[in-house]
């Protein structure tokens, strides 16, 4: 009788164990796979945010750095690693945690207008590796380990020509199009009707 109970208990234990899910591992996740076609004028600092998310059960330690993929006959517009700052550059991330990093691209005052860091505006699209030159890279490992994993994220900047002095005004008008339309209607009416009033008064 006791032996039978032991057998039953063992079967139940085995069944129970078979339903315990195996621990799956996941590396760090990122919310952006490219930072291409950022725009700014010479002397500007363009900022972008990028978020990492810890998805594995182990704590991971890592860091960010810049990378230039040198290709023959590249001109000096392709390597913009010296323009880029990443803050913070080091991190420790745990499961479920998200960490936001600020990418600052400081466009030099003497930068010529045009695309920098990539050979084409298509560089940000999946599979367009050949058109990329400048990257930011994050990589991390289980804390204490020597096996890292990470991703290359291409960065490119469209350096704009001389800024239009009327650009702020155009922006305000675009943002307040209804009010602007009203003001124009009122101005036209006043311009048409006020001279008539004056003329009548004078007569």
């Amino acid at each position, binding site marked *: 009788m006791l032996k039978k109970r032991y057998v039953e208990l063992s079967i139940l234990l085995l069944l129970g164990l078979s339903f315990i899910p*195996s*621990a*799956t*591992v*996941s*590396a*760090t*996740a*990122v*919310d952006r*796979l*490219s930072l291409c076609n950022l725009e700014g004028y010479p002397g500007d600092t363009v900022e972008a945010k990028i*978020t990492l*998310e810890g*998805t*594995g*059960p*182990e704590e991971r330690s890592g860091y960010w750095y810049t*990378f230039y*993929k040198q290709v023959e006959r590249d001109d000096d517009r392709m390597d913009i690693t010296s323009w880029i700052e990443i803050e913070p550059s080091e991190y420790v991330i745990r499961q479920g945690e998200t960490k936001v990093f600020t990418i600052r691209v400081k466009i030099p005052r003497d930068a010529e207008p045009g695309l920098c860091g990539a050979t084409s505006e298509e560089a940000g699209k*999946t*599979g367009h*590796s050949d058109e990329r030159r400048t990257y930011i*890279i*994050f*990589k991390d*490992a*289980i804390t*204490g*380990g*020597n*096996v*890292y*994993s*990470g*991703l*290359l994220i291409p960065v490119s900047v469209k350096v704009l020509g001389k800024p239009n002095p009327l650009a702020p005004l155009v922006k305000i008008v675009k943002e307040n199009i*209804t009010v602007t*339309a*009203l003001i124009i*209607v*009122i101005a036209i*009416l*006043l311009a048409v*009707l*006020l001279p*008539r*009033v004056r003329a*009548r008064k004078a007569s």
Partner: protein
Amino acid sequence: MKKRILTLVGVLALVAALAIPMAALAIAGSNEATQSASTAPATSIEVRAQDYTTAVSTITFPSGAPGSTISNPYNDLAEAQTFGAAGTAKPVVTLVNTAPVPYKICYNISTFTNSVVTGENYLVLPKGVGCASAGDISNTVAFDADTITGFTIAETGNTSENDKKDFYLKVELNTTGGQTGISTLTILGEA
């Protein structure tokens, strides 16, 4: 008269103020269906054990005679790299892509301290195809450089299981005995 004109201007302004938002509302109220889409974060390539599931944090090459080639590294689960046909050969680690996009596989292997290793080779193979001998591990490592390989790893859920790869390594030891050195292996993905 002036009063009438001012009243007229006021009424016109009021009408315009009401008419413009109403027109916008009328457009918004037409036969339209709302669509929504979202993107999930993309994970980097994961370095896993021979079961393609468990995390790996270290790779160790056993000691060997000075000047010899070591081709039986093991991971921190004590799984050693072995050679043979499909089903027999086991890589030191496996690579798994859990992201919805394929990646080009890049690596960076740092120079071993104390110059204990003079050269290293790697090989990336589809899941479980086998690796007959150490001689098949033929791609020379460029130390301390982010190097884009010609290998790609498919997006997660790939029907041919190309989202999983086997990764083999071997090193050539320095001719000086009694030394130990460490290095880091980085696997990077590029979408």
